[in-house]
Structure formats: structure tokens, C-alpha cells
């Protein structure tokens, strides 16, 4: 005779999280490939200029690890989007409800953001090491990095990765609910980018949003902004998916 088995949200979320980890180990390889690619591109320099007289020409090349960060953040967004699709496709076959699935996805994205942010920063260090040995450097300004700065860089990158993967997850979940939104959201986003190029009120608002997230000088305030935004995104998803039908 079988008896009814009581469970709780925490233990189910934990199992779901482990299941997600096992099912998605492959994305770590994609992270490594993306970062390696970005590293190779970075060695070519992000911008260059030439200054010359009749006698001499100076080619100035600025090299930075920004591409690695940008690539990693794009990766974080895609991972967020895919996690939403996978959650919808894979989660509901075994013990879950909408809430535990979203929470497990959140934990999973937190972990991937952590890994992505730290590895991206350390790729920047690797880039510096490579440059030191391979290139003739005009200046070594910015070549060495104080450990505190490195830590801060990792921390900020991790937070940005969290933001981007939460946005990807949010977009992915909206797309699961309504296919029309898959098209509508990018149109609105890129449309607003074009609008931002002109000087309209909407453009100003868009710029303010960017400034709000990307020009914060206080680390504590920046943390608060990201954490609140991510929390807001997840709460919206949880409320939004609570009545969602699955496995239709």
C-alpha cells in the first residue's frame, strides 16, 4: 500500500536545481569557447589610430579586455533565454510546480553568472599576460591590476551577468507564454535604440535607463540596483507563470 508523501518547496527546488545542473553541463563548454574567441579578438585591439608626420608614423593600438566582458554578457543573456525554454520543456515531467521551477532556474542562473563573471575577469588577466610576452608595448599603463581592482571587476561583471541572464530568462518566459512576444520585444528594443539616436523624450528616458545601470559609481548603490531589478524580474515571472498551463 502506498502512502501519500508530503514534501516541501525547499527540497523540491534543491532536487530541481541539481537536475538542471546535470542537464546543462554542456553550457560551460560554450562559455569557454566564447571567452577564448573573445580573447583572440581582443589581441587585435579594440581601436587604433595613426598619427604621422612626413618622417614618422605612429600607430596607436588600444587593447582591452572589454570584448571578453561583452561576449560573456551576451552569453549570459542567451543562457537565461535557453534556461526558460528548457524549464518549460523539461521541468514538468517530474516533481515540480511553477514556483519551484522558477526558483531552481534562478539558482542555476546565479551559479552560471558567478562562473561567467569570474572567468571573464580572469580572461582579462590572461590577455594581459599574453600581451606582455607577445607584443611590443608602448606603455604598460593599465597592464598590471591590483588584486582589489580585480576583485571589484569580477564582482561587477558577476552582477551584470546576473542582470543579463535574468533579462534573458524574463524574455524567454514571455516568449513561452506568447509567441508574438518573441518578435515584439526585439522590435521594441531595437526600435528604442534607433529612437535613442534622435533627441526625443523617449530617447532621453532610454538614455536615463542606461545611465542608471551603467554609470553608477557607488558599488553599494550599484549592487542594490541590480539586486532589486533581478528580484523584480523574477517576482514578475513567478506571478506571470503561476497560472500557466504546461505540457499542452
Amino acid at each position, binding site marked *: 500500500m*502506498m*502512502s*501519500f*508523501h508530503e514534501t516541501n518547496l525547499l527540497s523540491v527546488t534543491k532536487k530541481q536545481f541539481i537536475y538542471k545542473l546535470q542537464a546543462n553541463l554542456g553550457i560551460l563548454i560554450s562559455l569557454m569557447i566564447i571567452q577564448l574567441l573573445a580573447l583572440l579578438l581582443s589581441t587585435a585591439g579594440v581601436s587604433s589610430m595613426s598619427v604621422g608626420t612626413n618622417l614618422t608614423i605612429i600607430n596607436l593600438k588600444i587593447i582591452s579586455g572589454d570584448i571578453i566582458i561583452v561576449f560573456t554578457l551576451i552569453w549570459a543573456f542567451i543562457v537565461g533565454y535557453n534556461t526558460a525554454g528548457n524549464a518549460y520543456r523539461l521541468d514538468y515531467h517530474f516533481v515540480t*510546480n511553477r514556483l519551484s521551477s522558477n526558483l531552481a532556474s534562478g539558482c542555476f542562473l546565479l551559479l552560471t553568472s558567478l562562473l561567467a563573471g569570474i572567468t571573464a575577469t580572469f580572461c582579462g588577466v590572461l590577455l594581459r599576460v599574453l600581451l606582455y610576452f607577445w607584443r611590443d608595448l608602448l606603455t604598460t599603463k593599465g597592464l598590471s591590476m591590483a588584486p582589489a581592482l580585480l576583485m571589484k571587476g569580477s564582482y561587477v561583471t558577476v552582477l551584470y551577468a546576473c542582470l543579463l541572464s535574468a533579462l534573458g530568462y524574463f524574455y524567454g518566459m514571455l516568449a513561452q507564454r506568447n509567441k508574438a512576444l518573441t518578435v515584439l520585444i526585439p522590435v521594441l528594443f531595437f526600435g528604442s535604440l534607433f529612437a535613442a539616436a534622435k533627441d526625443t523624450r523617449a530617447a532621453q528616458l532610454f538614455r536615463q535607463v542606461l545611465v542608471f545601470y551603467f554609470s553608477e559609481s557607488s558599488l553599494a548603490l550599484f549592487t542594490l540596483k541590480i539586486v532589486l531589478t533581478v528580484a523584480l524580474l523574477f517576482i514578475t515571472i513567478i506571478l506571470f507563470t503561476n497560472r500557466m498551463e504546461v*505540457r*499542452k
Partner: protein
Amino acid sequence: MHCIESKNLSKTFDKIKAVHDLSFTIEENKITGLVGRNGAGKTTLLKLIAGYLLPTTGEINVFGRNPFNNLQVAANLIFIDDQLALPENLSLEETLAAVGQFYPNWQAELARALLDYFSLQPRQYYANLSKGMKSSFNMIIGIAARCPLTIFDEPTVGMDAAVRKDFYRALLKDFMQYPRTIIFSSHLLSEIEELLDDLLLIKAGEKYLHLPLDELRNYAVGLTGRESIIRKMTGQEQVLFQQKLGRDSIYLVARNTFDQQTLQQARLQGVEISPVATDDLCIYLTAQHKGGIDDVFSRN
């Protein structure tokens, strides 16, 4: 105690009533067969029970709770169909381990032994399995999970007859050791009837019959003989199926409401009385036309 209770349950997709005003109860620790034609609403009903879908109207209770988005119900239920999606990067044995952690009663050894018996390689990948082997693997998960409520929706798709037979037996053996509530939807009623305690027959989203299998076996009789004699003994409402056999003889299936005397008399008049196989009976009961496909061709 009731395991599942449904009251006036309806589910509508784009104005089409998939499940319509369905009321029934399923008792604990019984194997119930869910039978109906294609599009009768079987899968929709099972997904309502599993809490994947929201009822349009009416009520469904599983273990006394509303199953929709309910963690406690989900923890006590497993739903196996041919749409099962599993992680692509895990081998079969890794998948079993990953799935097993969700279920407190998971039988790892049984799963492994069944895997071995059905010649599935532990290191194979699910995506590379044939249709029948996928079904076998899904069913292994369904049996080994030992959930208080186990739902199989057409689990034998693609399996060959020998594998199907083995599975019915495996399910029955495991059920006898650990009784639980099982719902089994299948088109192959003749194969699964040995397994079943009860049968729930639905037609166009509505309940048509819900009765123990023993009663179903005596639900109707087949009468073969001269049409005039058989017509005299059966009322129009009794007739479930009829087929002309020649100029004046007929095979007719009727509700078994005859008393012994009537049957005896019919026998003396040369009417052959035969039992009706349950799967044939279900076909007759759910048919739109009493003459079956012949009706289409005899119109001209």
C-alpha cells in the same frame, strides 16, 4: 478513500469541448483503464488530473486537493506518455539516477534490472533510441518511481507485441507487491484487460461507462441468426451494433438485459449466442453509426 474525484469537469480548447461535464471517482489502489476513440479527450483528462492544465469549468481533486500547480500532488504522481522530454546530454543510466532523486520510493535496482531485461544499454542516449525502445525506457521510469498515482498515457506506442506483454506483466507484478492507483490509457483494450480492475470509457469528452471489468464482460451479447427472430427479441434501444451476414441472417450485438428464458428460447430457434470481446464492445459503444464503416458504403 477516493484518489481522484471529478465533478462536472470541462475543458475547452478554441471552442472545441475536449472534456465535457465529466463526473467520476477513482478509488485508491486500483488499476483503471481509460478507453475512448481518437480525440475523445483521454489525454486532456489525464493532463487535467496531473495538474498541467486548468479546467474551464468544474472541479477536479486528486488526493483531496486541486492538482493544478500543486507541489504535494506533483510529488505523489508520475505522468508517462510518449512526449517525455529528458536531458540530451545524459546516458540512460545517468538519466535514471537524475530522475530517481525526485521520488522517495524510487527502485534503482528494479530500474536497472528492467533496463537490462529490455536490452537497453546503460551508456546509450535517449535520443538515439528507437520509438519502441523510448517507450520501454519511459515505462521503466513509470514503474520504478512507484508513485501513489501513476498515469500511463498510451505508454506502449511503438513497442512490439512481445515487449508489450512483458511490460504488462512487469506492471502487474510490481502492482501486486506495492498496490497503487494506476490509470492506463490504451487503444489495445484486449491486451490490457487482464490488468484492469475498472474501465472508464469516454466518448466525445463525456463519460460513457465506468464499471468494473467483470461487469463489462457481461454487458452485451452477440446474437447470430435469422433477422426476423432476432429483431423480435431485441428492442431498438438495446442494439449496439448490427451487421448483415447474408440475405436474411444477421449478427447483432445487444445490451444484455435478457432473462435466461428468452435466451433459451432463442437458442431453440437457431440463434447463436456468443460473448462480445471487450475491445469490440468498446468500439460498438463509441461508434457514431450502428452499422460501422459498412454504413458509408451501403449508402449507394
